[in-house]
């Protein structure tokens, strides 16, 4: 679907006309990310991050397929083949640093994309499906990133695999059997490494598939915008190309500048030195931490130190449930926040709690990267409680009692200060 004033694809060259009649792929692209897609005229730079996430996925797939040409997915060879890539393969060091820092870049971009959605209410009707698919993409990204981090088979790789697969042993009754089945052994070893390599290769293409669904679902209602007011007329939109291809191109340049600065000047800043020690099943590193993008969720996992008093649910199971619920709660977000106003710009109370959530997640992240000792345990416990309160209590209450500020009549009015259609329209 598109707005009735969308430009129509009209190929001039006979070859393109012939192609359009047989396989209208150029038409699909034209309508998706070309001049045939009308987009609100007022998008700010936070709307660049969807395209940037797509670019990150492409970087990861390209560098990943190349790395797989030189890597050996075998517990005896994995660490050395990674060092072989770093030392011997032509440009191998650069490709691996692009890939490992590409994962971090991908998460930075996606976290900004998600928090853009939180602030501007992008998850609200009629865009719930876009949001749900986005959460699925995020879960797939987490699984892919985790398995990728295991592949170099260093100390953090091995113990990360041990801890994360250990989560499944918390499940009552079938946990231990499931754990052994997932690993193909009693501890991470060759069987586990090999299957992680296979799945790490597969999942990015699954992500690509869900990304296509995500964009498909986006094109039904069209893009949201910073006012949260829906498009009413042609004067509210501009064609995606050239307006947003140019704006996204500018954003991409800025992004690549930062990304390259990290890849070339601080490639190990986000990594952990312990992962340059070969995996040793007999020795746990003194301070075992996941990669930074898992820290907030890791802090929630560690926040549960006591069994649940009445039902006798073990602390370990509570921690695992807490960690997964922290993301699963996002699936319910479109129905937890019932305010009809989308954008945080016009929601004074919501806005304060939004920034509190940002701080809360940052605190959780800091605690997740710190050792499991006081005061970090008690701070993570308080922050984890607030995290769930925000979604399950604060949002429903705020959305029902808050008095939003007046909305502009239209996007055009928000941008130009007046909209001719406003004086003609009946008062609402």
């Amino acid at each position, binding site marked *: 679907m598109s707005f009735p004033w969308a430009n129509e694809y009209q190929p001039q060259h006979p070859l393109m006309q012939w192609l359009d009649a047989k396989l209208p792929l150029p038409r699909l692209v034209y309508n998706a990310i070309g001049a045939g897609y009308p987009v609100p005229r007022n998008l700010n730079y936070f709307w660049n991050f969807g395209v940037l996430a797509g670019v990150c996925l492409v970087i990861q797939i390209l560098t990943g397929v190349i790395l797989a040409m030189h890597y050996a997915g075998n517990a005896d060879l994995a660490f050395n083949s990674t060092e072989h890539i770093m030392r011997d393969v032509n440009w191998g060091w650069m490709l691996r640093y692009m890939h490992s820092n590409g994962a971090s870049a991908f998460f930075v971009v996606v976290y900004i994309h998600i928090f853009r959605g939180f602030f501007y209410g992008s998850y609200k009707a009629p865009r719930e499906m876009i949001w749900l698919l986005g959460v699925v993409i995020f879960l797939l990204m987490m699984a892919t990133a985790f398995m990728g981090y295991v592949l170099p088979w260093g100390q953090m790789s091995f113990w990360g695999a041990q*801890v994360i697969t250990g989560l499944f042993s918390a499940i009552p009754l079938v946990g231990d059997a499931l754990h052994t089945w997932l690993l193909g052994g009693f501890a991470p*070893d060759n069987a586990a490494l090999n299957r992680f390599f296979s799945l790490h290769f597969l999942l990015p293409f699954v992500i690509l598939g869900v990304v296509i669904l995500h964009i498909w679902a986006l094109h039904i209602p069209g893009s949201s915008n910073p006012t949260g007011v829906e498009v009413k007329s042609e004067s509210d939109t501009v064609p995606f190309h050239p307006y947003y291809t140019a704006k996204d191109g500018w954003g991409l340049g800025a992004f690549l500048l930062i990304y390259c600065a990290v890849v070339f000047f601080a490639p190990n800043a986000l990594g952990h030195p312990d992962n340059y020690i070969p995996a040793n099943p007999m020795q746990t590193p003194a301070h075992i931490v996941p990669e930074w993008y898992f820290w907030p969720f890791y802090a929630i996992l560690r926040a549960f130190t006591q069994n649940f008093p009445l039902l006798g649910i073990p602390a370990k199971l509570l921690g695992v449930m807490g960690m997964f619920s922290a993301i699963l709660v996002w699936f319910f977000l479109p129905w937890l926040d019932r305010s009809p106003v989308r954008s945080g710009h016009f929601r004074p109370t919501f806005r304060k709690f939004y920034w509190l959530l940002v701080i809360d997640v940052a605190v959780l992240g800091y605690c997740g990267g710190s050792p499991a000792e006081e005061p970090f345990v008690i701070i993570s416990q308080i922050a984890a409680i607030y995290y769930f309160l925000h979604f399950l209590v604060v949002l429903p209450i705020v959305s029902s009692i808050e008095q939003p500020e007046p909305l502009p009549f239209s996007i055009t009015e928000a941008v130009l200060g007046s909209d001719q259609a406003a004086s003609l329209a009946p008062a609402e």
Partner: protein
Amino acid sequence: MAQDAVTEAPEQGDGVRRRDFINIAAVSAAGVGAAGVLVPLISQMSPSADVLAESTTEVDIGAIKPGQAIKAMFRKQPVFIRNLTAKEQADAQAVATASLRDPQSLEDRTKPGKANWLITMGVCTHLGCVPLGSAEGEPKGEFGGYFCPCHGSQYDTAGRIRKGPAPKNLEVPEYTFTSDTVVKIG
């Protein structure tokens, strides 16, 4: 349209057509076949024969003095073999068993007459890290046993969980003393 004519052809008295039977039979047979194919697809993930074959380990414990411990390897996982001092045994016995998260006495966790030999898996029951405390100079936690650095679980001198997120005591593997100084694990 010819097909519609066939499907709407002669009905039995109860409304069941021969075509219904064929549909159900065909889909059922295909379903059973598809489910059968799942068996090898799922089963291949389980530990392979060579992984299962690593069954037992023999360890010489003659050189371990009271207060010392060693790390042996069993099924590619560490095993702690610890020679408890008299004080460590007394500390473990002084705790009221019923007050523990996973109630077990030191006697439950050692062999008769060998209460000084605490043999446990070196795998934290929380998420599988190797706890510290078996080697000289490593932190042993508040209860003098083992301390897991990953999520802060603390075990006492009988390897029992006392504090932190781990749900169970350190697992005691099956083992037998083949002589006073040799123990066979597995």
